[in-house]
């Protein structure tokens, strides 16, 4: 049986701890489920927000996804990564809501030709260093989030799952129902577009002013 409240920093110990928690919850210790998902709640929320783009909807979808994970915990198999399983449930929940409610404005028409064409960087500002403390500043985090929000849906979703949720290419492809090749193409464009957006700000002292208005793109 797991010992509640144990703090572990070693990844191996964390993995063991997680497996124990999963096993305990599967055997009926439902009160331990929150402890199991607590380390992932921010990732789950970020995945839902990337798809729904509305904080209220994202929270509701994220929490509903975790309730569904709880209800289906017996179906989870040890060979899968729990975090990936959780994120995939969240993506499914968010995509289902977007299809059902159709409240999220359609954007970024999935243009295969556009996707296949090359992307040329627009800004070549020298952006080699990142102050380690940069992310401690809420303003910096906020501006990074705003830059991400300007990306078209298909790029934003892939970028969030791959670079923020740390799903691999195949997992990202399966979660979104697209090919691995599309994931790679979209990821490349997302990274380069964000680089363009942020490099200029970096050069000017970390977004002393944004070079673009939200919702418009300089490319």
């Amino acid at each position, binding site marked *: 049986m797991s010992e509640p409240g144990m703090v572990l920093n070693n990844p191996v110990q964390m993995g063991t701890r997680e497996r124990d928690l999963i096993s305990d919850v599967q055997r*009926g210790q*439902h*009160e331990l*489920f*929150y402890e199991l*998902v*607590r380390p992932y*709640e*921010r*990732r789950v*929320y*970020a995945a839902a927000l990337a798809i729904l783009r509305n*904080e209220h909807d994202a*929270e509701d979808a*994220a*929490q509903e996804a*975790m*309730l569904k994970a*709880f*209800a289906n915990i017996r179906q989870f198999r040890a060979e899968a990564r729990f975090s990936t399983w959780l994120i995939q449930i969240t993506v499914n929940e968010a995509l289902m809501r977007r299809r059902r409610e159709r409240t999220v404005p359609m954007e970024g028409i999935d243009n295969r030709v556009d996707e296949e064409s*090359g*992307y*040329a*960087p627009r800004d*070549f*500002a*020298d*952006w*080699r260093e*990142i102050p380690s403390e*940069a*992310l*401690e500043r809420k303003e910096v*985090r906020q501006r*990074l*989030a705003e830059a*991400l929000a300007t990306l078209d849906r298909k790029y934003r979703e892939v*970028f969030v799952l791959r*670079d*923020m949720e*740390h799903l691999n*290419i195949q997992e990202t492809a399966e979660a979104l129902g697209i090919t691995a090749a599309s994931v*790679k193409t979209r*990821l*490349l464009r997302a*990274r*380069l577009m*964000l*680089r363009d957006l*942020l*490099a200029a700000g*970096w050069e000017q002292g970390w977004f002393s002013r944004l070079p673009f208005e939200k919702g418009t793109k300089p490319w």
Partner: protein
Amino acid sequence: MVNREVVNCEQVWKEISNYVDGDVDAALRSTMEEHFRACKRCASVLAGTRNVVQLYGDERMLEVPTGFSRRLEKRLAKKAGGERWSSWSVWLVPVAAIALIVGGLKLTNTFSFRHPVRSILAAPVHGVPPDMQVVVSSGSKVFHVAGCPFIHDKASERTITAKQAMQDGYVPCSRCLRQYLKTSVTGHSGAEVADSAAAEEEEEQEELLSAAGQNAAGH
């Protein structure tokens, strides 16, 4: 297909995301590294792309709205409580049904088989011909066939139909009408019937002795 020996800037940009992910073969990696050393612009794009991946991949970029954790924990607790009830409810119906059946059988046994709370005389009477002429007398609620030696107070005896006797609350004599009682005590153990009959016999013997004494005193 990228030329493994010489790559231009556009080819580098196309592969730069895979390069950051370590998803290029050794030959291409070597070629690209050579290009980065020679091309300041591409080196800047590479640094910026790495920065994007590093910044957005930081846990600090994943924020949830204030109160998210508390609301999630509350919903999970509610759901967990419901699940516990739900899992119980799966068993509740069959368990309750079995309890009702067993309880019903036990009650039936209690009142009909194991512990007769009514006298054998109050037991249901079966097969008594309703038009049969029987004798009743004062001081007793037992009806007899004519000539039965156990008729109490023969001076007050009167003849009526068995149907009328039973409607008036009389019961068959366990001696002269025993055959109609035997069929009505199914389920009683033989010992119980014998005990009851013996008690009744003692009672009737006392009545006979009492009546004989009264008659003797009358003479």
